[in-house]
């Protein structure tokens, strides 16, 4: 069993009328099965309303399943006795950095979590040091959080989660409110945590460029997981991605379009290098293989006869 495992996970939001009586049900997550191994970098891609945030909230028991089960670190979240273990295993980072910061000084904010669970003072400072270092914010430890940029604030929020020493971090659209520089900063931080600290990362996003470096991508639509695979496999199914009105990188889209036009290109080209190599091989087709050479050859023979 992986660190996060959901079996037929289903969640219904209950709509209520003005008097608070139940008035219809909206199924936000619909029989989702996932199994995420410790140390993986997993991305969940989908539109607003696709159920990806609802799924994320199950990963540290902010929501409990209506049907089905989700295990975090092999603990069933529906069992109340497991609540603290679950939240210690999986930390969450949300969309709006301003809603997540409570300290008046960066280092106090980062120390807030461990202090709340009764970590000894010395240990708190050690964790604060390490967490700030991990997100590259040590230089700002005595700054006021409200003077930081959006990307820096998100990194402080991530440090706050890191100070809890989770095995897994779930980030729910952490870059949606940031500018391109802030987005890059946060993504770089998340990737480093995954690679250097071996933290399991679940990144919820609707930006396709953020999932390209993930180990595995899940695409959600209408509460279900509709596609799953490596970024190359998922983006390679370009038509499906377009049908879900999700973006693919321009290089993938261009390769796919050219493939429709009959050029023999690979599926799911994600890098400019690969694309340029394949096109140049077609163009210079004559030397060795490639169909341009093959087309010419019979013509040559005819001419010789």
């Amino acid at each position, binding site marked *: 069993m992986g660190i996060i495992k959901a079996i037929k996970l289903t969640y219904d939001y209950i709509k209520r009328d003005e008097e608070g009586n139940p008035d219809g049900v909206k199924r936000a997550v619909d029989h989702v099965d996932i199994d995420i191994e410790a140390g993986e970098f997993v991305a969940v891609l989908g539109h607003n309303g696709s159920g990806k945030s609802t799924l994320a909230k199950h990963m540290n028991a902010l929501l409990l399943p209506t049907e089905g089960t989700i295990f975090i670190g092999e603990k069933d979240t529906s069992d109340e006795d497991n609540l603290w273990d679950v939240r210690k295993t999986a930390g969450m980072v949300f969309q709006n950095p301003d809603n997540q910061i409570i300290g008046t000084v960066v280092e106090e904010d980062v120390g807030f979590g461990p202090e709340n669970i009764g970590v000894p003072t010395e240990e708190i400072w050690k964790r604060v040091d390490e967490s700030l270092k991990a997100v590259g914010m040590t230089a700002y430890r005595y700054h006021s959080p409200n003077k930081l940029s959006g990307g820096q604030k998100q990194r402080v929020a991530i440090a706050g989660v890191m100070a809890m020493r989770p095995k897994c971090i779930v980030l729910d659209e952490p870059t949606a409110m940031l*500018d391109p520089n802030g987005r890059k900063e946060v993504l770089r931080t998340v990737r480093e945590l995954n690679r250097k600290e071996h933290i399991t990362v679940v990144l919820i996003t609707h930006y396709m460029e953020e999932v390209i470096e993930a180990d595995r991508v899940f695409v959600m639509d209408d509460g279900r997981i509709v596609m799953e695979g490596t970024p190359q496999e998922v983006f390679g199914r370009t038509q499906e991605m377009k049908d879900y009105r999700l973006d693919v990188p321009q290089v993938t889209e261009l390769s796919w379009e050219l493939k429709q036009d009959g050029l023999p290109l690979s599926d799911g080209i994600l890098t400019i290098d690969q694309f340029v190599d394949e096109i140049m091989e077609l163009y210079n087709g004559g030397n060795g293989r490639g169909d341009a050479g093959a087309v010419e050859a019979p013509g040559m023979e005819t001419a010789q006869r």
Partner: protein
Amino acid sequence: MAIELKDVSYVYGAGTPMEVRALDHVSLTIPDGQFIGLIGHTGSGKSTLIQHLNGLIKATEGDILYNGRSIYAEGFSMKELRSKVGLVFQYPEHQLFETDVFTDVCFGPKNLGLDKEEIQARAREALELVGMDASYDEASPFELSGGQKRRVAIAGVLAMKPEVLILDEPTAGLDPKGRDEILDQVALLHKERGNTVVLVSHSMEDVAKYVDRIIVMNHGRAVFDGTPKEVFRHYKELEQIGLAAPQVTYIVHRLKEQGFPIDGDITTVEEARRAILEGIRNRK
């Protein structure tokens, strides 16, 4: 008929230690009917620039002409300017406040002092323009999705019938579907009404797809100004200021370097597709 900026500078907190020159001698003309993309990093001066266009902030130096008249001249009606130059702020949905969608959109024209029939006709028309049919009229703005809320907020500005529509990052935080819907609506509006549109954006791909002209801001100056092709020709300089051309421009340049016969001035996937097919076919 145009907006003309003449050597405009703006300094925040002049004379204090926090003094920042947000605009630094900017001169440019925005003629009628153009679709302009305004690009630059956070802090480059884009937002400061657009707030000058309807007189929300006053230039520290320089002058701004609206249809040939200085907006700072005595007797110039700022109220009229603001009804002609409509500004949609970032996250405009935060400004929705009425109990239902229709009333919210009526707020702007009501403040122009129009009669009730005209107000309602304009609100209906504006909502149609952003693709919100009458079935949403009585909904609370807070029941809508993020993209819908934003469209209602944009309708609130359209109902003022501005000649110039300025949108400050209208797609920030929206998913790709919501983004395409908003940008397609804006493009349609530009086409049908002939409005001048200024679109502030971080996305080169979006801008390349829609606009006639790109203005690139950096450190308070307009560093590049031209058609997307002209501006993206400077992709190496754009990188130096932390911006980038669309990915497809890089692809085309790489192909060209390797000897593939292709025009380097390509900014959209469709253009690249046609050019590459042509290159391969001619080879055969």
